[in-house]
């Protein structure tokens, strides 16, 4: 095929003096994107080690139901229990672009109200779990069974008292939507409606890199703050992509200016996956790829991040075949360092800036190591 071949020219990063500025004590944050949040000692310990103060927790998604022709909630988080970790939580709602495109003004009005109500309900549930846990600890203090004549307090009344102390009062609400030029008007309208319902909270929206670079095209959402997502630059189904999670080289092509009209928090990637191709056709994403690539008989390593299958393999219910290519996508520590430099160079960072990693998962965190992650925060 003509002209499909290129020779790569390495772009060098010229870091300006701005990167030598004093570092800031940013608010250490993580994103929690699973459908169940049940912290135990292991999670508490990770939070403590990295000194995490804040989490964006995905409460639910909203998708457009083509049958009933209305936006409906999907994959609502079933349990939020933080154990002993004391974190500020920002409820986060992912809304598909389709929802915004297909809903009319009336539906958007009702969507805003329904979302607010649902956030309140989930917040209430979260507080109930916390009240239960607090009440339990009060009613049954440590080693209570060793106490002679131990007399337990009435659990229900303690729980009620604890529950009354907790109010559903989120400082921020995060709305995540990959809006397009076409859906901009509707999306911004929805954001305004949400804002009206939260006079005392800040409304934050995710800003994808293209929306940042082409701000005049994408528009600036009418909110209090943005969360700039510095990852997922290309689609994973592109065979030619080096790493769809992102590279610092690509990031530098997007963060070309520093005059975005909103205060920005920063989200960086901390995950990995493997992408499978047959020929140049995308076959899917494998999140559990470790065992596969360690099989040196059936899998041949052809470069740092690429593997070719030497035999047909059934992984779960995925049938991979001889000749399929697996591209492991993970961002190296050096790359994250470079990304931080690029961000700091253009975007104003202060002690109020939240720096968040996507996403909180023991596997990824242990992969990078808590010390390295702490250093990433410190680099700001």
């Amino acid at each position, binding site marked *: *095929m*003509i*002209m*499909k*071949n*290129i*020779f*790569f*020219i390495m772009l060098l990063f010229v870091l300006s003096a701005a990167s030598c500025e004093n570092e800031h004590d940013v608010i250490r944050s993580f994103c929690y994107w699973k459908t169940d949040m049940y912290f135990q000692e292991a999670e508490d310990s990770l939070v403590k080690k990295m000194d995490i103060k804040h989490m964006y927790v995905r409460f*639910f998604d909203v*998708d457009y*139901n083509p049958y*009933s022709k209305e936006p*409906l*909630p*999907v*994959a*609502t988080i*079933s349990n939020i229990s933080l154990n002993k970790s004391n974190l500020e939580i920002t409820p986060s709602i992912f809304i598909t672009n389709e929802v915004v495109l297909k809903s009319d003004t009336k539906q958007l009005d009702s969507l805003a109200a*329904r979302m607010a*109500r*649902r956030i309140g*309900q*989930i917040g209430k*549930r979260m507080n109930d779990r916390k009240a239960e846990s607090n009440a339990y600890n009060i009613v049954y203090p440590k080693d209570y069974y060793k106490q002679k004549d131990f007399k337990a307090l009435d659990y229900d009344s303690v729980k009620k008292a604890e529950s009354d102390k907790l109010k559903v009062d989120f400082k921020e609400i995060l709305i995540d939507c990959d809006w397009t030029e076409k859906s901009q008007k509707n999306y911004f309208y929805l954001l305004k409606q949400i804002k009206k319902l939260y006079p005392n909270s800040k409304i934050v929206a995710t800003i994808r890199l293209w929306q940042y670079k082409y701000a005049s095209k994408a528009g600036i959402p009418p909110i209090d703050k943005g969360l700039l997502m510095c990852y997922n630059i*290309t*689609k994973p*189904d*592109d*065979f*030619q992509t080096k790493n769809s999670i992102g590279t610092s080289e690509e990031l530098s092509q997007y963060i070309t200016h520093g005059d975005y009209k909103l205060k920005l928090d920063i989200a960086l990637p901390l995950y990995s996956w493997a992408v499978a191709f047959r*020929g*140049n*056709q*995308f*076959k*899917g994403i494998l999140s559990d790829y470790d065992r596969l690539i360690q099989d040196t008989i059936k899998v041949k390593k*052809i*470069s740092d991040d*690429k593997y*070719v299958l030497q035999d*047909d393999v*059934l992984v779960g*219910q*995925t*049938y991979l*075949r*001889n*000749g399929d*290519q697996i591209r492991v996508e993970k961002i190296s520590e050096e790359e994250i360092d470079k990304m931080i430099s690029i961000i700091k160079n253009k975007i104003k960072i202060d002690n109020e800036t939240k720096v968040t990693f996507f996403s909180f998962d023991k596997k990824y965190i242990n992969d990078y190591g808590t010390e390295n992650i702490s250093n990433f925060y410190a680099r700001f």
Partner: protein
Amino acid sequence: MEPKISPIFMRVFSSFLFVLSVQFTFACGWSVSPETSRLALFRAQREGFFKLTPFYYSADYYYATNTVSSVDQEKNCLEWKKKLGNSINPDDVRKILYETDSEQFQTAFENKSLKNVFPKNTFVDALLLSKNKAFLNYILLAKKLEYGNVEYTKWESWDQTEYNYDNHNQLEDTFDFEKKIKSTKDSFLKQRYAFLALRYYFYAQQKQDVIQLYNSYFASESNTILKPWALYYNALCIDDKVLQNYLLSKVFNSCEEKSFAVLQHYNWKLTEETLTLAQNDEERSVILAIEGLRNPAPGLKSIQEIYELSPNSLFLSFLIGREVNKLEDWIFTPQYTSDGAPSVVFGDTDWYNYGKVKEENFNKDILYLRELEYYLISIREQTSGEQKDYITAAIAQLCFIDDQVEEGKKYTDLISNKANASIQMQKNIQLALVSLKQDNLKDEKVQNQLYTYFDSVENLVETDHGLFKNLYSLYRIASSDFRKKGDIVTAGLLSMKSDIKNDGEYSGYSNSSFFNYIGYFDRNASVKDMDLLMALQQKTDKTPFEKYICSGTIAPNVNYYKDLKGTIAFRNNNLELAYETFSSMPQDFWEKNYEYKTYLNEDPFTPKILQKQEERKFDYRFNKTDFIAKLIQLKRQNTANSNLQLAHAYFNVSYLGNSWMMTAYDWTSGASYIDYVYGDNTENEKKYQNGNYYNLKMAKMYYGKALKMSRNSNEKAMASLMIFECNYYDHYAELITEEEEAKNPFKAGKELVNFYSIYKTTPTFKRYNCPLLKSFIN
């Protein structure tokens, strides 16, 4: 359809910015999902396959369904009919139980208007008889406890934040199920109340109550359809996963409604352990079959095991069909779709020949196909009835995939005339395949017979949408066979038919536009083919076959075809034929159609490469007839100036020029939607006008002539500069790696040297020279 104007990698090289760097615009390749492009011709069904619909082989990793069998519901209606009397119409029971909103029923009851709201409903009439009061009370409770989402669905409700079925509010606190069940005398009602309670406790997560109710009221033998339903809820309440699997397999085998739900909950890793609980061969075969229903890899071993346990099993047939579909996917899909022949670069420098691997996989798949085929042949004689016909059709299909047409025909003929309608339909598909491979496709009789085969499948599509895939696959193969016989016209129209049938995924076709009608022919047709196509379009007494292939595919306007014919003639350097063709068209055609106004609007006699962006006006009224007439005239003149103008024109009709749309309909390099649909066109494009389109061969030839003939140093300077440009683009049209560049570096040539020496005083030199250009002179 928009023409794609950004190629995957674009080497930008302007005379004004001699920057020798690589710029690439990344455009993601166009593709559809593997499930959409997958080919499948085998869709024979046995009675009872319906409940297995979600488990047909699919290239998707997940299983989705929008079909739920109503067989169980019908059984329940019949149970009511049996109970309340033969005068009851089961359809009336169905209306109340399954098609009436709970609120509507309750309101009608409270307003004493059941009779008015459900007039002439025999079931309501029966319920309203005083002797049936207990039954009415039961229905009222059952309707009250109705719930929306039995099957798993991703959609939630705004009113609930938890998955749990929260129906506590629907019942008064004082309601006592146990009391109700015990106080009910009628065993029919007793069991139904028990079922309501069981389901209620299931959603309230009172597992022990569910298990207890099941054991008390359903565990002993009973004929009601409620039993497998109750068993389903009971199974899900059991903590022992192996036992749960075993019970779910029993539900799977004994009712239809829960088949999808059962597989949602099945624990796939416990097949071995589950088998140890099976009481007999039948049960063992069901457990093995469940495992096979999600296996995307070769599954002959399970098929053999199931056959040994239960030779007439319905699941066995289904799994054989799945196996045939897998082989069709592995063998046919790469053969007949544009994803078929990737040559892939792995890493930055490593070249990896995927073609070789593809061949290895193909050979392995063929060996597997034969293993399956021989096995089916070996068991065929021992089977009987529908099972035998089904297996015979499967063997025939395997022969066709393996290109053993005679053998395939032999088995197709063995399918009995008494076979069910679905197997007969499969037979027709197979007879069409035989005809496509063996008959004289030019013969009108053969064509019309093919039409009857096609039509027999088309007639069934209405009742089984899954058959769209068969039609898509059949027409794709038919198109390929007609093409092999040299009939490009039929091949093209069938190829369009195939895409139209592909479940509407190629949405471009639904809004018929200019390029949809000519896309296939742009890639494949000759001038002669275009004449044949136009003759078919104009033909008034079309045969049934011709009528069929033309419907929805033939262009509404003959000028679409004329435009392509003229363009093909131009690509072949036949200027006279191009002129004759274009001049026979309405002369405002290029202002009113396609994207001509957007892309064919600049002076073709000024090389695009010498223009600054701000000099380009895009307001030239381009007329193909006039343009070709001018070329003919310039050729006749054969002067230095006329050759220079011809050279500029040929530069501009290359993909680098401002009039590329004179030669091509889209400007791509293999990643666009139309490349996806019609195949990569690069190899064809390389041949346009003796290699002018990418390598500027004609332009360079005319610049050479102008340089030789001219006495004017300014003209000579222009020709020299442009020869350099042509050389540059010719060199980099295919180049590529640093190593290759090092081996065969670009050399500027004497023309550039002359430009910087002999012609350095000319106005052309003064206007276009620049330091970077000079740096090419070593």
